[in-house]
């Protein structure tokens, strides 16, 4: 299965969940399929799972999706142990495993040889709801389950390599951040960007 058809299949299941998406094709494709200020891009390879964990801990009543890649997860495999330790009930971590560094030109990753079992590693790290999926229907079932049951959840999706033809991102990282924070402020009813009052207003 291709990543793009997977994204199209799960988009109808999504309401106001937040998405942290790894550097690479998953970000562009997801923003084409489901444009939203609730999507935040990631620029540091591997850090999406850790950012997602911090977001999930900070907003325990909000579902948080992480879109990871096999090269990215290899770089921060320890994050699975940390997620297993903290057990965020609202975290849904999806690995798009295309068995290559797609954004770097297709070099092999740890997954290319076919010996690694990411879902098994996640389960052993304490992420009980962990499974591998190989068809679009299995993926939809796994996402539906994750949306309706406490996590943390880990879903390793075995996909074909290749990117869909989609437009470039609308926002750079800074504009993306501001839109994302304002979206969280509006939907959570809280103030995050607390700008200080200018000193002149404090004069008596």
């Amino acid at each position, binding site marked *: 299965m291709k990543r793009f058809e997977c994204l199209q299949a799960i988009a109808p299941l999504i309401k106001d969940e937040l998405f942290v998406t790894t550097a690479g094709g998953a970000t562009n494709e997801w923003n084409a399929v489901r444009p939203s200020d609730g999507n935040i891009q990631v620029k540091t390879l591997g850090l999406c799972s850790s950012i997602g964990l911090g977001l999930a801990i*900070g907003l325990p009543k909000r579902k948080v999706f992480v879109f990871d890649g096999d090269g990215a997860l290899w770089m921060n495999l320890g994050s699975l142990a940390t997620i297993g330790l903290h057990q965020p009930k609202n975290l849904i971590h999806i690995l798009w495993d295309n068995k290559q560094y797609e954004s770097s030109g297709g070099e092999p990753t740890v997954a290319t040889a076919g010996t690694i079992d990411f879902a098994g590693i996640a389960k052993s790290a304490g992420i009980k709801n962990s499974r591998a999926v190989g068809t679009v229907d299995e993926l939809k079932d796994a996402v539906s389950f994750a949306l309706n049951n406490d996590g943390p959840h880990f879903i390793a999706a075995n996909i074909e390599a290749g990117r869909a033809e989609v437009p470039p991102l609308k926002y750079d990282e800074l504009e993306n951040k501001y839109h994302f924070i304002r979206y969280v402020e509006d939907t959570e009813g809280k103030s995050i960007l607390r700008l200080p009052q200018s000193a002149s207003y404090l004069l008596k």
Partner: protein
Amino acid sequence: MGTIAGAQNILAGLKNSGIDLIASVPDINMLQLLNLLYEDKDIAHVPVGREEEGIGVCTGAHLAGKFPAMLMQNGGLLNSANGLTTTALQFGIPVVLMIYYAGDIGDNAFHMVGLVTEPVLQGLGIKYIVMRDPAKVQQDIAGAVTLANSSKRPVALLLTRAVL
């Protein structure tokens, strides 16, 4: 190991400044502070396995509306340099870096890490205070939090044994 009084002083400074989430990787010199954090009910404590993970956790926490800090040794600052650059600095994330200054003058371990710590912070463009005076701990923490929030950048506090 640090002293209980030093740890209490730092924790009070963090709370008074509004810090409500701390990611950490331990160091022996911050043992008392970490012991307090494990017991504390007001600050969410998120132990991580490697410091760059902590920068990610603090970034996510900020996006969720928390005031985060990262507690680590200066070796961990080196581990987290890419996350600091391409996430915290590039996205403009306020996070207070509470860094034990191993290899500082008077310390007997990790002299190479101590040697490069301040040049690395300068190279990253991260402003910092070397904390040597216990009487100024509260003021230093409050200043770092204010600048982190107003500049939307990481700000570092280098903790020496004198304040721990």
